[in-house]
């Protein structure tokens, strides 16, 4: 099913980026469950995380990992806090300290916000599919960012994100499934 979603037919006539972004921008807040599978050359088996994602317009994004450990990541404006409750460790940093980190986070947050300008600052955007099943491919504009991420693919249906795949330049890969389909 996932493969089918990613291999959508070429752009239908009624699909354009502003239309999708406008729909996304109309969502005031969203809360969904997720399952994320991280594959890495450093790991002998994929690491599977489950939890919930929360988005509140305009710039608040929360990722609550519930298993295999408990960790709350809160991105609000330019501030990022990661609170690992299992290890009892808190970490804070500012997005202004690194444009790569900003780009990594904006890939998801600016899409949720429907903020084309913020997204285009870091990525070239390609859109395919229909309004009910679209696929956005983000390619880094900046070479420093390209050293970290090869591309990000976001699949959605109208104003809902359904799947985010990040292909890192190292060959590592993470695939996040969002919404009720997530087990």
């Amino acid at each position, binding site marked *: 099913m996932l493969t089918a979603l990613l291999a959508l037919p070429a752009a239908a006539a009624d699909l354009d980026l502003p239309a999708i972004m406008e729909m996304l921008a109309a969502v005031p807040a969203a809360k969904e469950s997720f399952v*994320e599978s*991280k594959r*890495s*050359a*450093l*790991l*002998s*088996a*994929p*690491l599977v*995380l489950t939890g919930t994602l929360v988005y509140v317009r305009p710039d608040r994004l929360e*990722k609550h*990992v519930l298993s295999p*450990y408990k*960790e709350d*990541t809160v*991105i609000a404006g*330019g501030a*990022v806090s*990661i609170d*690992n409750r*299992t*290890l009892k*460790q808190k970490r804070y940093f*500012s997005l*202004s*300290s*690194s*444009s*790569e*980190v900003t780009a*990594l*986070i904006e890939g*998801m947050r600016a899409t949720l916000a429907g903020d084309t300008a913020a997204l285009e600052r870091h990525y070239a955007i390609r859109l395919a599919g229909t309004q009910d099943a679209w696929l956005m491919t983000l390619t880094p504009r*900046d070479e*420093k960012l390209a050293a*970290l*991420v090869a591309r990000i693919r976001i699949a959605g249906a109208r104003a809902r994100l359904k799947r985010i795949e*990040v292909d*890192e330049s*190292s060959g*590592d890969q*993470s695939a996040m499934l969002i919404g009720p389909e997530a087990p």
Partner: protein
Amino acid sequence: MTPSGRGAIAAWLILIAGCGYWLTQRLVLTTDMSAFLPPAATEAQEILIGQLRSGVASRLLLIGLDGAGEADLARASSGMTDRLARSGQFETVSNGDASRAARDLERLAALRYALSPGVVPEAFTAEGLRTALQESLALLASPVGAQFRATLPQDPTGELRRLARLFARPGGPSTRHGVWFSADGKRALLIAETRAPGFDLDAQVKAIALIRRAYAEVAPAGAQLRLAGPGLVAVTARATVESDAKRSSAIATIGILLLLLFVYRSPFPVIFSALPAASGLLAGMTGVSLWFGQVHGITAGFAAILIGEAVDYPTYLYAQAGRTEPLAATLGRIGATLRLAVLTTACGALSMLFSSFNGLAQLGFLTIVGVIVAGLVTRWVLPALTPAGILQRKMPLPRFELPPPGRLTARAAWPAVVVVACIAALTIARNDRLWDDDLANLTPQPAGMRALDRELRSQLGAPDPRHLVIVTAADRESVLRRSERVARTLDAEVASGDIAGYELAAHILPSARTQEKRRAALPDAATLTANLEKAMAGLPFRPGVFAPFLADVERARSQPPLTPENLRGSAIGARVASLLFADAHGWVALAPISGVRDAGALAAALGASGEPGVLLLDLKREADSLVAGYRAEALRLFGIGLACIAALVFAGLRSLPATARVLAPVLAAALLDVATLSVAGVQLTLFHLVALLLVVGVGTNYALFFNQPQPGRGARALMLLSLAVASLATLISALALSGSGTPVLRAIGMTVAIGTVYALTLSALLAPRAYRGLID
């Protein structure tokens, strides 16, 4: 010509030739304004002034780029940084580019087990490693995991992350397009640190030119370069002082020549009148250059005043010479007064010679040598040189006459005393507003430049801290160990909220003992491998993935300790150099404290720790005490100069009432001068007092001549003419200086100009009483 006249001319020619040779071949001009700063009374002040002259702060040039789009400015910022870094003139060039910081970190990565405070024995046990691996796993899967992925195999314990946190400058500017920008995004920001110290102005000129050239090569259309920093201020100051000194000397010379031409109606007396001043100036500058090794720009600027003063002497001689009278006869009449006039000015300057400020001593030296040589040339060379009859076409005698004896003075004396006393009282009452407390005002610096400096500094998040802890010890290792002990006290102060934070060189460059302790915390290869294997059990890491970690730890176990040399050329190295350096007494570590909430508690905690060689420095209080010392010095010099002049006048006149009559108008003039400046909103500096001494010296000359017995109306009129010309000459040179852009020169010029007018007027008003007693 008499033999003594020939001898005088020969000696004079030799002097001029010698001085001329020296000045053209060997003159070194400086503009280091710290020559006019008070000397340090304490070690803390010494450190403070040393830092001002050559510390890292003195080598920073702050650069702003604005007026174009964000992306263009960011590109220009990177382009400039590359070019400046390649030039080799800069220790570091920073523009906030994270990849540069990353390169710094990469260079130091091999040293992380010596540098990171996380290196303790517990971190390398099976339990410690397990916690670190769990943390690494979560980080890898976090939204920012891609950033840490590359270094994870070599650094599962996160020492590099700790280093990055340690090296991050707190409160720095924000980043846009990967480089530093002001908060509003309108200005890209850079910091360049020159290799040369701040006082090496030729090197600073070169560095500034490099910045301007690099900017010109990369500037986007419409952009503007904003430059600030101590080096720029000093270089601008030198240019201003140099051009001011040249301009005011030229204006004074031309003005005075025109005046003399008007009076004598013939070029020859004018040329001869210029000889004493020119000789005095040559000899004075040569003397300063020989004695001090270099001539300060301010001293050279002061020369203009000296011209005005030294031109008075031949004027007294020529103007008072009767139409047919030989100069020898005139000298017989006025010689004693002339000698006293020269000596009073020299004496007033004598006190400056003993000043602890090098710059003031130079001014004093120049004045003393200058007026004495000018006096000698007037007394011995001019009579031998001046052909008879060249003073024939002198300007017709002035029509003005003194007020009839006694009429004005007798009635006005007491009210005048009351008025002057009132002004004195008012001036003293304004004492708190009388003084300029800002040492920075000494340096010629356009107001805009100071504002820009402050603006860039605050945008770069580098405000000057007010509180500093100074740790001193005999050698580097001791000062670092002591710093580490002080850090425990400071950490407690941070925890209790008395202070917000602090910076410490020992945090970046630990003492050799601490590094040794960290090395000892690293287990041997077999132990570490076993511990790691135990820690990895049950975690999804691929076996063998941490081989680089095992190799790095093993290498770190035999690494020699880190020294500042390892840090050279990195931004971190520059920061260590700014916080840790050797001085005349040993080694010094500075710990700037930020957010001091309770300075008393901090001082008490530092005192209670009982650690010797630790000092809490309140920069504001130190600056205040420097200024207080500076005022005390100024007043002391003024008092001594005044006493010298008074003693000399008494020695010359041998009469207490006569001395009082000479000094009264002069002192009143000085007082009115201060009152006028104060009312005009000028705040006094040491230089106003120096100028005031000059006013007293020159004014005493006027009063002396007014009080000199004159044989009849004709001689009196000639005396009046000479005084009018002399005071006009002084006024011209003083006005030439008061138009200067250099605060010091302007202060001197204004004070002398105002004082001359008062001194002449008051001397004239008070003189007739003397006439009655002495002549009629």
